[in-house]
């Protein structure tokens, strides 16, 4: 019963998130609305952590596995994008490194500066 109730809450939030994505004319998926909604419900105390924790931890744990099918989904369209594959890969590799480096270095500097200040 525990898991059923927990999954029901998560499914209901996912459903409302999906409805929002259909109503709001922005390219934001239901999962993002759902995430924000669940966070608000937790902060306001409408949903308590122990109401969803077990099912949530399970779903988060299996998350990497859920990306296999999306990764494989490039297979049927592969022929149509084969010509631009090298250019696409090059842009992706370089820009991924740039984002990783910039975000990481800026965040590390700002976060450690703030942490340092509390000791003063």
């Amino acid at each position, binding site marked *: 019963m525990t898991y059923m109730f927990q999954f029901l809450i*998560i499914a209901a939030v996912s459903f409302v998130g999906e409805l929002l994505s259909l109503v709001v004319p922005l390219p934001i998926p239901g999962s993002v609305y759902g995430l924000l909604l669940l966070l608000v419900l*937790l902060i306001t105390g409408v949903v308590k952590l122990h109401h969803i924790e077990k099912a949530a931890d399970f779903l*988060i744990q299996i998350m990497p596995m859920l990306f*296999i099918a999306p990764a494989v989904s490039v297979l049927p369209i592969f022929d149509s994008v084969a010509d631009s594959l090298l250019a696409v890969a090059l842009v992706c590799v370089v820009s991924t490194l740039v984002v990783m480096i910039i*975000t990481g270095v800026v965040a590390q500097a700002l976060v450690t500066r703030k942490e340092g200040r509390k000791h003063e």
Partner: protein
Amino acid sequence: MNEILWESAYFGMVLSVIYFWFGTWLRRRFPSPLVNPLLIASILTIATIVLLDIDYDAYTKGASHLTWLLTPSTVCLAVPLYRQLQLLRRHWQAIVISVGAGCVACAVTVAVMSRLLHLTPEIYHSLQPKSVTTAIALGVGTQLGGLEGIISLGVMITGLFGVVIVDVVLKLLKVTHPVAKGLAIGNSIHAIGTAHALELGEIEGAMSGLTIVVAGIMTVILAPLFSGLG
């Protein structure tokens, strides 16, 4: 054989789970960033489909049950985020500034490279949202006139390449704070990165999950502004 597999609602799912389990086992034996369970499972699944000439739809039929869980599991990223709410309150400026800087850097890099490589506008628009989670990328990319196949390809190359190199890159740059690591991972390799960040620790995972939301929203705003630059 294809006809029998066609009928099965579980074939694709079982195949994915077995390969992922194998990937996890392999990583325990050979702990290296290159041995990534998702990367291994994806390569083995593609190899199986191609070599055994399995109908792609027969695979998807079963595997889609796993993909179906992506929405609820993304929603559940609110849980680690809620547990780390103190950190979010404390570091919100660092979060907004670093994620914003990363998003702008990404937009500029993709625009400059597309011009240097003489990419067509369709390909440029497809690559603009490549650092955000697939669903947002597809929404943004197709609105700008990108091609769905290339959008998914860009997001996937980004995710699989990023997840393999991220630990080494962050170590070289001395990005050691869990908050900073989470932000860098989430901003560069979206949900695939978040799955990896959660394995590093709850703070990394929470921050990476938060970045999916923040970077997603920033990209929705930024991408149209940069769309003429490619």
